[in-house]
């Protein structure tokens, strides 16, 4: 039944042609799918991953159209009359200590926070992946050099790093995110390197080397897909942490400035009122939880999709 040979050349007789039940389309369809597309297919068959993707898309969409939902005035105008109102029909998320509508602020806040979060994670993940791969794969003095730099970087507190980046490049949100991303690199580097040290001992790495693959290829094509799973998970969790860290830097005056809302900053402010107005911390917190959750569902889906052995 070698349907992949359209002419059924070798064993096939005229009779065999006659009883081919279905056209050979099935196999050729399979053959036309690239690994990436197969991974994508697996991803989109995973209901949780798709849910995550939809939620994230929705969040991004809402933040994009935020100005149509709430004007900037509504976001910044204070009023004693509406101060600290619990959630109600008029204010589904309640109002904050200055009487501003929290729903509007949460929606606007996503713009800054998500951008910051993603950028920070991407820098950390990108930089850390490359350094970690090189470090773990090359070993020897290269490893030692990179790792000792990582030790140095790890020891420098993020705030200080952010301050100096701002000092060097001038103030601005992007600089701050750059700094926080930079501060994240060592974590990813160590995580990737650890796994690479293990993965590079696999026989298939040897096989790749023997067939003439260069180091770059071995690192990115052979080792990376086999170590990326846990790191992906780490990165997706890092989103929430990145949002909080950038908020902390805004507080120092390095990031977004009031009254511009930011989830992390709102959450920080909410702390003073947590015993008096639960809705102040809860809603921005929930926003972060949902963002992290959805990105994690996506991350999990990706991990499964690139791991052909794992099937649901």
């Amino acid at each position, binding site marked *: 039944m070698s349907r992949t040979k359209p002419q059924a050349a070798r064993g096939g007789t005229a009779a065999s042609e006659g009883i081919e039940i279905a056209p050979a389309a099935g196999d050729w369809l399979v053959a036309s799918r690239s690994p990436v597309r197969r991974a994508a297919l697996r991803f989109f068959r995973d209901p949780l991953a798709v849910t995550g993707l939809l939620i994230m898309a929705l969040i991004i969409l809402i933040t994009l159209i935020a100005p149509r939902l709430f004007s900037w005035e509504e976001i910044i105008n204070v009023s004693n009359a509406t101060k600290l109102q619990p959630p109600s029909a008029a204010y589904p998320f309640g109002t904050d200590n200055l009487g501003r509508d929290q729903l509007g602020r949460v929606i606007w806040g996503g713009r800054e926070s998500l951008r910051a979060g993603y950028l920070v994670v991407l820098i950390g993940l990108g930089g850390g992946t490359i350094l970690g791969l090189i470090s773990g794969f090359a*070993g020897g003095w290269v*490893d*030692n050099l990179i*790792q*000792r*730099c*990582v*030790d*140095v970087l*790890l*020891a*420098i*507190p993020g*705030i*200080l*790093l952010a*301050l*100096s*980046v*701002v*000092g*060097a490049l001038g103030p601005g949100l992007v600089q701050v995110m750059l700094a926080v991303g930079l501060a994240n690199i*060592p*974590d990813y580097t*160590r*995580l990737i*390197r*650890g*796994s690479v*040290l*293990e993965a590079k*001992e696999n026989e298939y790495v040897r096989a790749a080397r023997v067939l003439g693959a260069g180091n770059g290829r071995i690192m990115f094509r052979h080792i990376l897909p086999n170590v990326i*799973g*846990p*790191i*992906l*998970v*780490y990165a997706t*969790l890092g989103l*929430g*942490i990145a949002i*909080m860290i950038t908020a902390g830097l805004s507080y*120092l005056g390095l990031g977004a400035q009031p009254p511009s809302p930011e989830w*992390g900053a709102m*959450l*920080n402010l909410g*702390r003073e009122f*947590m*015993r008096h107005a639960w809705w102040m911390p809860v809603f921005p*917190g929930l926003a*972060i*939880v949902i963002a*992290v*959750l959805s990105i*994690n569902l996506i991350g999990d889906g990706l*991990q499964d999709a690139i*791991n052909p*052995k*794992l099937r*649901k």
Partner: protein
Amino acid sequence: MLVYTLRRLLLIFPTLLGVSLVIFAILALAPGDPLAAVVSEEYGNTAEDIERIREQLHLNDPLHVQYLNFLWDAMRGDLGTSFRGGSSVLNDILARLPSTIQLAIAGLIATMLLGISAGVLAALYRGGLPDKLTMVFAFVGVSIPSVYAALLLLLIFAVELRWFKVVGDEGLKSLVLPAAAMALIPAGVLARLTRASMLEVMEEDYVRTARAKGIRESLVTFMHIFRNALIPIVTYLGLLAGSLLSGQVFVENVFGRPGLGRFLVDSISARDYPQIRGGILFVAAGYVFVNLIVDLLYGVIDPRITYE
């Protein structure tokens, strides 16, 4: 390996040298003036006053002179004195070290207990209830800033239930709440990491071999799946151990514990250069040490890993 270990231990010195250089570079770049914290706001500072204080704190020396002086002093075990109170930086750090280490160890243990058990359960019951619960726990964990966790724990267990004192020495008991607060975020991360890492090895052939031996499932889980999933876990715990030394300012603040985290953050916001340098050097030494242990552990976890 012994040679490797020794070499790595020796590398502490160049690393610290690197750290000190980087700190100097960073402090030179970082905007902000230490005088803000030294000179208080109220009355009549003259320009001469300010100049005198700057001179006094050696802030006017060229950077390389400051650096060499610092290096020379540091080599003799003198980390200088604080800009603000004039206290010995070394004493300040040593005074905070025991409490910091205590809490770090407690936090590490709490993280491991919580994170690993949750992660293992999640991996074993992938897609099932334990998995979902861990997932929710992890997301809430990483999304709640530790300061909230700390405050909530304090309010519930110390103020409402009175199981603990809000402040006051209760021996090991007073470590429970801070350690729990500290563990919340990392435990969430660790749980997810453990799960992901275990999923990577669960389908390996040797796991099947282990099952075919008829050994208890718990042994299969721990000796064959978990052990082979350890590398990212140990790496993360190493990173965590380092960061617990310096990164726990909120927990330290809420529980009023003298810790290196608060010390560093305070000294950074005051630009108290000697304290910053000293603090970071200690933290760096901590990282170098922890990472060395982690690297050695790699070899124990996976004998194929060697560093030659």
